[in-house]
């Protein structure tokens, strides 16, 4: 039960022998084929892979947004697999944060209200010191009373990041967070994510197909054809790109 005690880095999220199969018969698609993977606490992990490799599916399964066909997923000490709606809702409130490609802010709320929304929903008071820290880190002090429509894309995504951070979840899942941003705004967001890991010990799992973005992570996990095929620690854009190229050629050979 607590086999993690002796470990150096405790796992914030874990997938064991996870299979995900869509459809049946002729139309059957196997998205994940027995993936086993751990995401250590206070690390910034990127999941990469060519489109169709199953990287988004893996993240959705880890976050409890999608069910797994076989195997188990856990976040912290919570086994996600088999949770009902109420359990999943509680999990999302207390242990998980999300950052989306589309920002997904509520247009009716101000930046500040958007950031505090998860806490309000859960009926919790924000820790004022932590809130100030988060706001300062994302640099939104003078934008708090603006509505999303009055903010640039980069600012909106920083609001979304702050929203994920403010409740100090066990793990933040980021789905192509820079996909809708220009490279400068993207770099800002990535730096900010990396800082929150380094300085505040936040755990982040990010799905991306951009090698530059992946280079901000501490570790990159590569997926192809529903399986983990490779891994890089302390990656750079170049090493990521090389690995990707190799994977592409393997896939071509495999075809």
């Amino acid at each position: 039960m607590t086999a993690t005690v002796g470990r150096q880095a405790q796992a914030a999220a874990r997938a064991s022998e996870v299979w995900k199969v869509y459809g049946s018969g002729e139309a059957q698609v196997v998205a994940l084929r027995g993936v086993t993977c751990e995401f250590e606490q206070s690390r910034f992990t990127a999941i990469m892979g060519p489109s169709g490799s199953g990287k988004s599916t893996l993240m959705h399964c880890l976050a409890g947004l999608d069910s797994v066909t076989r195997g188990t997923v856990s976040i912290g000490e919570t086994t996600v697999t088999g949770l009902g709606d109420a359990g999943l809702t509680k999990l999302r409130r207390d242990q998980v944060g999300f950052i989306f490609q589309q920002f997904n802010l509520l247009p009716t709320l101000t930046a500040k209200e958007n950031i505090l929304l998860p806490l309000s929903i859960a009926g919790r008071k924000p820790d004022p010191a932590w809130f100030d820290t988060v706001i300062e880190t994302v640099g939104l002090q003078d934008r708090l009373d603006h509505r999303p429509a009055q903010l640039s894309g980069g600012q909106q995504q920083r609001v979304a990041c702050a929203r994920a951070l403010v409740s100090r979840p066990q793990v933040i899942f980021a789905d192509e967070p820079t996909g809708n941003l220009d490279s400068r705004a993207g770099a800002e967001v990535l730096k900010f994510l990396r800082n929150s890991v380094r300085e505040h010990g936040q755990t982040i799992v990010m799905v991306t197909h951009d090698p530059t973005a992946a280079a901000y992570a501490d570790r990159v996990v590569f997926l192809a054809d529903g399986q983990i095929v490779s891994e890089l620690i302390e990656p750079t854009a170049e090493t990521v790109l090389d690995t990707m190229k190799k994977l592409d050629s393997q896939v071509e050979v495999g075809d």
Partner: protein
Amino acid sequence: MFRATLKSLLARKLRLILSGLAVVLGVMFVSGAFVLTDTLGRSFDAVFADAYEGVDVNVSAKPTMEVGDFEGEAVAAPVPAETVERIQGVPGVADVTGVVAADGARLIGSNGKVVTSFGPPQLGMNWVGASDLVQLREGREPQADDEIVVNASLAKAGRVAVGDRVGVLTLEPKREFTIVGISGYSGGRDSIGGVNEIMFTTPVAQQLMLGQGDAYTNVTVTAADGVANDRLRDDVAAALGADFEVKTGAEVSADASATLKDGLSFFNRILLGFAAVALLVGTFLILNTFSIIVAQRTRELALMRAVGAGRRQIIGSVVLEAVAVGLLASVLGLGAGVGIGALLAYVFGNISGGLDLAGIAVPPAAVIGAFGVGLIITVVAALLPALRASRIPPIAAMQDVATPDRPLTKVTVAGAAVTATGATLLFLGLGGHAGGNTLVTILGGVLFAFIGVALLTPLVSRPVVALLGGIFSWWIPGKLGRLNSGRNPRRTAITAAALMVGIALVTGVTVILDSTKSSISGLAQDQIKAELVIGGAQTGPRPPTFDPAVLEKAAALPGVALVGGAYGDLAQVGDERTWVGANSDVLTLTQIFGARATAGDISRLGPDQMLVSSDVAASRGLSVGSTVPVQLARAEAKTYTVSGIYESDELLDPVTLPVTAAQGFTIPQPIAGFIQLTPGAEPADVLPRVETLLADSPEVSVADRETFIEQQTKPLDDLLRMIQILLLLAIVIAVLGIINTLALSVLERTRELGLLRAIGLGRAQTMGMITVEAVVISVFGALLGVAVGSGLGAAVVEALHDEGITDLVLPWADMGTMVGLGALVGVLAAVIPAVRAARIDVLGAIAHD
């Protein structure tokens, strides 16, 4: 293009059905009205065709007045008995029968209560022998003066049988008779058209129903073999001269049926009125649905423009959708209308005591009305969204256009203008400045006021919705719901406006009726100086009456100071038809009603004298000493001299005749009695004694003034309930509108809902959020409705000030109920959309692009 339209239509089945439902309901009322009147009309035709089956020619006297009083039927003068002999001498006549048949023969049933009728007359007739149509089922014909035959429907209603001794009220007070026979009609029918009949011997019928011997209501003639009816008609007419109306049986039957059908047009108008309300609300609904659909299809429509569709084609495609919805709704509405019409006809037949219904048919008017109304309303409502759709630029297909919040200036200015027009029309109509079109002007004013307020609603919605929503802000789903309801002011406004219409109408009607009631009671309370009142609740076309002898006996009771019995009827006074009254004691005017003389003496009245109100005196140029010819319903014309003038007052009749004249009224018995007690006498002591006197007058009772006032205003309460129930329909349609708006909003915000769920919003919280949104919209609509309705009601009450409606009563409790109902409506409307929102698949909502 056509195929694309149909496809998108099919893809949006549910929401179009929801908005189409409003049209279905409206069309249902329109076609139902036509089906009902058509069915009942044909049933009446059949009834009268039956009743005049054996009559070849009918002779009656020319009416003394064109139209009588209570039912609007012509009050014909009796036909002298010797006419029968005169007709017998006409060649070609086989048989002549003098018939007495007049309304107002009321049987006291075995329970001591008078058998009442809700419409069909209660005929008192002479027994003219069995025929192909009328047969004796039991017993024998009446031979002695105290013997009667009743028809089977009356025997059943009164639970009486052959051999029973029963009381009958006629022109004279209660008399006792023995039932010696029970009659029925060909085909085993108990009654023809629900009419109850009591058949006396001829002299008794003449005395009790006509008030004079040697006369008949009409004379029926059968033709000898080989003589054509119209030929005989002309011969009889020539023999009798100009004082008589001679018609063939078929003509009389058609005339009688036509009179009843006129009465039916009243039903028709009521139903069409509700159809109009339903369709008005439906228009808002359709406008909203199409607006939302166009907004959601922006990309799709822009793409069509980009690949070469012209503006007209875009408009065409939206209008085509509307046509399809309108057509479908009309078909369904027509079907439902036929059902409703048939149901109402059945109910009507039952209430009226067994009208044999003709088969249900769908008259062309119902079909034309259904499709005309259904299509026009739908297309007109879709036109504005269609125009908006045509203005979408092709570039919108490429961009992610956040539809900018268009400024509300234009719509607000338009709203102010339309509201002002409505207010002006109302002012003109209610102020009586609209010439002959008062009703049209007022209705137009109400319609414009509704549309105007609806246009102003978006502007009002912001602060009001913010304020309302403030109640829920402590709760995060509540706050989100409130923000959502303020998100699209136009959409919120139209949805709320649809609810406003129904609630405003209910509130307005309540204000008017409550004010009327309060004014009447106030007036009666303040001005009638009588501790006890004799009267009854009127259930049919005839007011309840009682034996005039009671008045004298009551006056002799210890403790009684003055008794006034009131009589009334419409009469031809000079050249105008006017309501005339008579009091058993002329002192009633001054002592009980507080009349004040402005000229002459109003405390006495000779047999040839009359009193008039100051209004009548002024409008006709009468003064003390003027002479006026008066034609009463059942008396020779007579000239009266004005002996006094009193100040006009709602309690006083415009013209007061001496009590002797009451014998010539349609109903020559008092319809109310006012008893003033001597100082110190206890009402509770006198009341039981008066009660004893009324033993033979079961239609009325004696009560203290408060109870009497309550009794008199009760019909207003009943009317109010009826109108409220019917107007609930408009509210039901508005609920459909709220469901529709919410369902579409949920669909639009799928991604947002997914996100909220992803960051931890529970299912119950999601449902709470949607419910708050609905409640805010519906309470907003209810508040608007209460405000607009109070305004309209107050305007009407103000306009009726001169008619004696002086109190303005705002029904706070009812208004509170309306707002409460609004909240409830919101909760109900939210159920389906909320469940849908809670079931949204989180992953599907946020992952799809």
